């Protein structure tokens, strides 16, 4: 559907994008995830035709896009600022693109109505663009783009201006909408939970380069690099010694944990000198006094960080130079485990994550 090959974008000597290779499939919900300034918007704008690559090429639906301006591309965009025309009302905003097509008045009206009801804005058609709340503006921007029946919808951080509650509702709604109409969505976001919750596939970007492209579970559970792992939620990077390849496995001596074997995925090349072993905080379970697990380590609670659903404990484990982050569930009582306590922590052998670099 969208084929991006070898695309680069330079601003003077500054390299905003480098060697981007990316295939996005038809009907896919694809997210570009990365920290601020990594080039997400730049890439999205190249796809939408608002900017021209310095090198490489982009094709959409088999048609090369070089020299094709935004108004002739089968894409529509929901801008980060929403870009609602302030001098037009909601219905006029939504009809803006339709006015350029040769439609009868009735056809146009029908499409506007359909789009407004899709985003649940029925009855607000005569409200001025400048009189809308953030959530409503977001919906108008969505309706205005969808009414054009694009092959690809580009969304630049469409939810970042909304409050948390509304944002989570809209994540579900946007995903549902995409499934209903079945077109390709390309979403730009710096919020890893948003990307994980909504996408079919995610490309994680750093410094103008793509670090990893994978499904949400894959990218969370098997990040290929420390950086990706760190960006997608918490990760305890472990101190290891003597990491080596042993048949199918990568084996390492992990201080405090013993010798840990990690199965290699596929025919992946792993350089033991560069690889890192880690474990996600939620894969470390605090044990009750009468509980006994096969694999256990013990440590001392240094501090607690309360988040409501869970509490993050910082635990100094014997042998590891850096304290580990461990998730404590609310089962442990209102005040939880006090700082200074000695705790036993269980883990599964398959919970370790091997990162190539």
């Amino acid at each position, binding site marked *: 559907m969208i084929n991006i090959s070898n695309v680069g974008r330079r601003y003077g000597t500054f390299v905003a994008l480098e060697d981007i290779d990316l295939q996005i499939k038809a009907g896919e919900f694809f997210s570009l995830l990365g920290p601020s300034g990594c080039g997400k918007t730049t890439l999205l704008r190249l796809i*939408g035709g*608002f900017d021209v690559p310095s090198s490489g090429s982009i094709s959409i639906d088999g048609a090369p896009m070089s020299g094709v*301006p*935004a*108004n002739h591309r089968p*894409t*529509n*965009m929901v*801008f*980060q*600022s929403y*870009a609602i*025309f*302030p*001098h037009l009302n909601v219905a006029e905003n939504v009809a*803006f*693109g339709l006015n*350029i*097509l040769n439609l009868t008045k009735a056809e146009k009206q029908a499409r506007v109505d359909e789009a407004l009801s899709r985003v649940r804005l029925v009855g607000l058609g005569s409200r*001025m*663009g*400048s*009189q*809308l709340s953030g959530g409503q503006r977001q919906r108008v921007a969505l309706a*205005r*783009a969808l009414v*054009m029946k694009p092959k690809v919808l580009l969304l630049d951080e469409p939810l970042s201006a909304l409050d948390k509650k509304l944002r989570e509702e809209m994540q579900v709604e946007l995903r549902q909408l995409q499934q209903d109409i079945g077109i390709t969505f390309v979403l730009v976001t710096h919020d890893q939970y948003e990307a994980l919750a909504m996408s079919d596939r995610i490309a994680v970007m750093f410094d103008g380069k793509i670090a990893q492209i994978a499904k949400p579970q894959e990218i969370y559970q098997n990040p290929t690099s420390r950086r990706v792992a760190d960006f997608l939620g918490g990760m305890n990077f472990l101190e290891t010694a003597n990491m080596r390849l042993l048949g199918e496995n990568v084996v390492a001596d992990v201080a405090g944990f013993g010798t840990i074997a990690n199965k290699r995925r596929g025919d992946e090349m792993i350089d033991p000198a560069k690889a890192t072993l880690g474990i996600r905080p939620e894969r470390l379970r605090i044990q009750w006094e009468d509980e006994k697990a096969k694999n256990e380590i013990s440590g001392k609670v240094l501090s607690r960080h309360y988040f409501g659903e869970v509490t993050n404990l910082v635990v100094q484990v014997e042998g590891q130079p850096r304290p580990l982050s461990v998730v404590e569930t609310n089962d442990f009582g209102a005040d939880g485990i006090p700082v200074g306590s000695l705790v036993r922590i269980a883990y599964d052998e398959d919970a370790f994550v091997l990162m190539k670099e």
Partner: protein
Amino acid sequence: MSTSPARKILWAYVVLYIVILYFPVVLLPIFSFNDSATPTFPLKGFTFKWYEGLIGNETMLKAARNSLIVGSVASVGSTILGICAARAITRYRFRGKSAASGLIMAPLFLPEIIIAISLLVVLLGIGANLSLTTVMLGHLLICLPYSVTVLVSGFEGFDPSLEEAAQDLGAKPLRVLRLVTLPILAPAILSSLLVAFTISLDEFILAFFLSGSEPTLPVYIWGQLRFAAKLPNVLALGSLLIAASLILLTTAEIMRRRAERRLAGR
């Protein structure tokens, strides 16, 4: 409300300030309706004859026409240049930007007489004939900072992605300009046109130095002041100019505020 001495002094100051600033201006229309050849109190009676005297005055009408032409060209010119400058200043980062905007604003701070003399020297130096065209050039120079100021504030509230959104929805560049850029900037543009026109209409020093044999209204008025008998007519003409300026500037301000309110959604 406190009535502390400091407050009273402040009030007295404000009143005095306003009286000194505007009292002479108020006198002008009063005497222009006074049935007397000299502007002195007590007033003699009400008359329109000084205004009627203007109607058949060919030289005056010619000067008025000159002023209109110069004002129109200068305001349109400075607005067009102002749009380019304001767009560049608000949208792009480039080397020498602050120097460039400083230069555009300079005529605001330079004494007009200096600008007038410098222009005169340059124009004569390159062998240009003094005419309405040279006045237009001069006025363009002094109107530009005002236009740029008004337009920059218009552009600052203008999200560039609005134009991109229009293009994204299929609009060609001209359509984007017509349906999005101009309607949103219209108030600022109108405001710039009116402000520039008003400035050009009232401007004397540059017009005096650069107009050659084709006077604008202020230059004509200055010429008439030599004849005591013409003074009441000049007062009438001056009053008309004040009225025109007031109306234009008020309209400009109302338009600007209305647009600001509309775009801000209140």
